[in-house]
């Protein structure tokens, strides 16, 4: 093995290595920090110039945001839509993921291609025809209607992640349970389900985040029942700066926590997408 080269370069290249890593970390974190500074400053400080780079720890901007008419309702709507999306995409996606990982059957490839194809399409555009469809079926401007569109965005991910999760559990475990007298369903419930529950939770959280963040379809499909992103988007040109920043902060916060919770599964999820 070549041992001399790493030694020769090690100090300088280690220095470059860690500087690059730290700079890239700063590149990601600094803008978020600046948003936090704005959020935790009073409305006067937000519009003041020049600006301080440390937060005042003043909550009036957030209080103003919380008391702004329609915000509470929009947040409740966001949570409701995201929750329905989460449940629907797991209920529909997980069985499909299980079928893809456990069975060989005709049409399997076609189905897989269809799932992958959903990613090669600009999905938010679905909101346009669905707006027409929903008016006909009375689903327009409803929580459930929007949740259906968001499920369409989240379900392909749910299928792919559950597929990779189920593939990671040897079928022998299930077979052992069958020979011990379990039915197919019992074996699934008692053996497989406990093993993949954390992964299922991760993909549910991911579905939640997709719906929580989605702007275009939400803005096109809702009027009275606007979600938080739709509300913020539609009041962009009329709302004062501190309202925008507080809104942005409230949008970002849950996403940060959720990504932290699912970080282990991010790579499993995308690794499978390569094959």
């Amino acid at each position: 093995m070549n041992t001399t080269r790493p030694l020769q370069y090690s100090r300088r290249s280690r220095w470059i290595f860690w500087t690059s890593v730290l700079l890239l970390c700063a590149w990601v974190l600094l803008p978020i920090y600046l948003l936090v500074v704005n959020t935790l400053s009073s409305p006067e400080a937000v519009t003041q110039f020049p600006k301080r780079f440390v937060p005042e720890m003043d909550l009036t901007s957030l209080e103003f945001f919380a008391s702004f008419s329609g915000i509470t309702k929009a947040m409740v709507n966001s949570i409701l839509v995201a929750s329905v999306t989460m449940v629907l995409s797991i209920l529909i996606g997980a069985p499909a993921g299980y079928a893809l990982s456990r069975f060989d059957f005709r049409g399997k490839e076609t189905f897989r291609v269809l799932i992958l194809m959903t990613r090669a399409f600009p999905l938010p555009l679905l909101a346009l025809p669905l707006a027409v469809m929903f008016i006909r079926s009375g689903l327009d401007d409803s929580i459930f209607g929007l949740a259906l569109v968001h499920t369409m965005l989240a379900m392909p991910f749910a299928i792919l992640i559950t597929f990779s999760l189920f593939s990671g559990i040897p079928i022998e475990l299930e077979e052992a349970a069958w020979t011990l007298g379990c039915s197919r369903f019992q074996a699934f419930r008692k053996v497989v389900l406990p093993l993949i529950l954390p992964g299922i939770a991760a993909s549910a959280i991911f579905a939640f985040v997709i719906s929580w963040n989605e702007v275009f379809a939400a803005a096109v499909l809702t009027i009275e029942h606007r979600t938080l992103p739709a509300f913020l988007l539609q009041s962009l040109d009329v709302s004062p700066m501190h309202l925008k920043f507080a809104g942005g902060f409230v949008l970002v916060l849950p996403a940060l926590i959720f990504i932290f919770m699912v970080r282990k599964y991010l790579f499993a999820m995308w690794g499978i997408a390569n094959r």
Partner: protein
Amino acid sequence: MEAKKLPYLLLLPAALFLALFFVYPFLLVAWQAFSNEAGFTLEHFETMLSHWKFPTAFWNTIWLALAVVPIQLAMALFMATLVSRMGKGRDIVLYIWTIPLGISDLAAGIIWLAIFEQSGFLNSMLYGLGIVEQPVMFLGYQSLWVIFIAIMLAEIWRATAIMLVILVAGMGLIPKEYAEAAEVFGASRWQTFRRVTLPLLRPSLQTALILRVILALEVFAVVAALSGTSFPVLMGETYRYQFDLQDGSVAAAIAMVILAVSVVFTLFLLRVLRVPKGAQI
């Protein structure tokens, strides 16, 4: 008998859902774009083309995608390489780098607005350093190129993480022995990267690029937050026709344009980065 039916039963909800909310709506939107009461027509496309904003929005979208995606690709490759050499601290660095994955485009737009607005952090910094005497108006329609750069930065900041995740996952699939063998034969790190890692990474590169280009063509809320209406893009025009002008058919026509551009880019990437059969890991 039962075991034969079971997979289809399990797939049924997903298949029905896809048919109802993916295949059918796309047929519907295509029909809406190409038809009026009388039947087939191209009038919606003519309306679309007759508006001065359309060519601007079209080229803005394309140029933005062409400017953003290559930089993101280079950054994601660099970051993935750094991660692959990391022992201690890998998890925390990866978490930090993937944070933007959870941040919506609207929030990203607002975050960069905090930096570029007139009393924002960039102006404050330039003023503090004595470079400007008074705050500069960065995001006005007089300086479209600054808006372009601001949108670019916001997009690069927000959406590089998705490519990073795909590439890190892809690099994890490449057996370590290949790089070791290259080193034994005296290849430099750069040569190893160029001749071993990159070719083996092709499937991941393909996925990452297709996904990212399509998302780039859908750029919408970042632009809305940073520029209002002074920098038209295709998705914003779709929204304007659908929501403000209540003309669903022209919105559908623009949707067809976005779809067509997406398909062209996808086919191009599939062709350029195709993986020869038998060369897969």
